[in-house]
């Protein structure tokens, strides 16, 4: 019995594939969130968490606002998903296992870890994140051998990637008023 369940579980995770039309629609929504971040002086990353065609969570960076450097769009949206589950008394794991993350930029190493820990099966993203990317750019967390860190997940990248990069460039051209002045690096 137990083995059978695990087997089914794997099949459902593997077959999880939204159609192009859905991807376009949800990514447009994620980009709106990223724009909102930019307008509020945050790193322009936006995301959406979709379960059964329903948006359970929406997030954008809230790092400066909360003075907490871990408040990335994905973490914010995951909180909403968990809240949604709490309200309906649903097990977060069973919901997350069928939830897709749409995000404008490749999740960072931390967020990729968080996505594993919450058992999100699929991530659709725009551009790569050369600074912190955890889905292949700096490290490859989704497929890493981490048996005690949730489940591995799949990634689909390249949706409106250039647009996502442009937004990041716009942001980094401005100075982050909250960051300390960088010191010259000693080698």
């Amino acid at each position: 019995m137990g083995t059978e369940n695990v087997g089914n579980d794997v099949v459902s995770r593997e077959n999880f594939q939204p159609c192009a039309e859905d991807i376009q629609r949800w990514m447009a929504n994620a980009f709106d969130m990223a724009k909102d971040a930019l307008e509020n002086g945050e790193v322009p990353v936006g995301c959406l968490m979709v379960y059964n065609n329903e948006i359970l969570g929406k997030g954008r960076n809230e790092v400066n606002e909360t003075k907490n450097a871990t408040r990335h769009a994905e973490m914010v949206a995951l909180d909403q998903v968990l809240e949604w589950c709490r309200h309906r008394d649903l097990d977060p794991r069973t919901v997350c296992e069928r939830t897709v993350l749409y995000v404008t930029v490749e999740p960072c190493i931390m967020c990729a870890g968080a996505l594993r820990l919450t058992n999100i099966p699929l991530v659709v993203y725009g551009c790569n994140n050369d600074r912190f990317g955890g889905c292949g750019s700096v490290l490859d967390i989704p497929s890493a051998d981490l048996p005690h860190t949730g489940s591995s997940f799949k990634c689909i990248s390249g949706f409106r990637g250039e647009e996502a990069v442009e937004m990041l460039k716009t942001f980094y051209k401005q100075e982050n008023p909250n960051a300390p002045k960088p010191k010259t690096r000693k080698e």
Partner: protein
Amino acid sequence: MEPQPKRRKESECDFDSWVAYPVLSNEQSQDTELIEAFAAPIINKKETSRLIKELAKVYPLPGLLHIKRVRSCKDKGSPHPLEVIVCLASDAPVIDHSKDMHISDLSSSGRLNCEGLGDPFLVKIPACPPLTRPQFEQASKHWPTSFHEDKQVTVALKGQLFTSSQKAKMQEYMMAAVAAARAGQQSGMEAVGAAVVDPEAERILAVGHDCRKGGHPLHHAIMVCIDLVARGQGGGAYTYDKYPACQSVLPYSSPSQKQGASTMTTCGVVQDGDSAEESGQPYICTGYDLYVTREPCVMCAMALVHSRIGRVFYGTASTDGAFGTKYKIHAQKDLNHRFEVFKGVLGQQCEDLNRPVPYIKMNS
């Protein structure tokens, strides 16, 4: 500075019972990589300086500046007291291995005047400059190399970086993390605890424990602590009021607090922390130390990078740990913030947290 009032018993264990070892980068901790080269004895000592000059032209060794071209043979009875690296095996012409090799095989069509050289033989030489004393000692067994010793790293590797009074402080901070872990365990959480410390002011700023069970699957002790620090700075995203053992304290930023506070020495740390203090405003976890009972997972490790943590101290390793076991996030190339990590602080007490709860406590 007035010491913080504390209720905790510090005599619970002796700080000679543990040693904090640095978690070094792979480059610093891996075995010396070796490459093959041809060396030859110098049979006429008078030719030495000419040979060195010519070899540098004919067979330069780019990227091997740490290699000393000539070595003196330890065996004093040897007829030829000097040996020289002629060229890398990969730079040598293809040689008929059925015959014994002759030095003229390496003359590079006569560009090298082989006079004064004996017949060549294969040696293995270190491919990279040694970064630590153990690497240097290993490398030197193969061929002499130069070594720019970082004395702090050498001392740290011996487990002697911290003085007794520093260890007493470190123990106090880790005890706070252990106590938080125990408190979390009492409310059904996994026994993991963490504390964020301002090492200049010698103050604990936040203490937290694992808060996953029944609440939030990402509320690992470190994530809790990071948010508690944010709360202490007027931000924060969560409340942990249900958990009395999770607490934050407002950081001091007045300069008088720093006077007389002994700054712990560190080895070669890339700390961009001073600028926040210059402006008088703390910025996330810049310049702070984190104490955690066990090695952080990859999410928490990267959260500490984002938070610009100063240093990290943990008790015991964990299976998927990201500060030494599976990754070395603190030494990861490409990331814009690097810091020192030490393991083994109060190792036994932290290890004990992994044991099942004593059943008297379970029944209470």
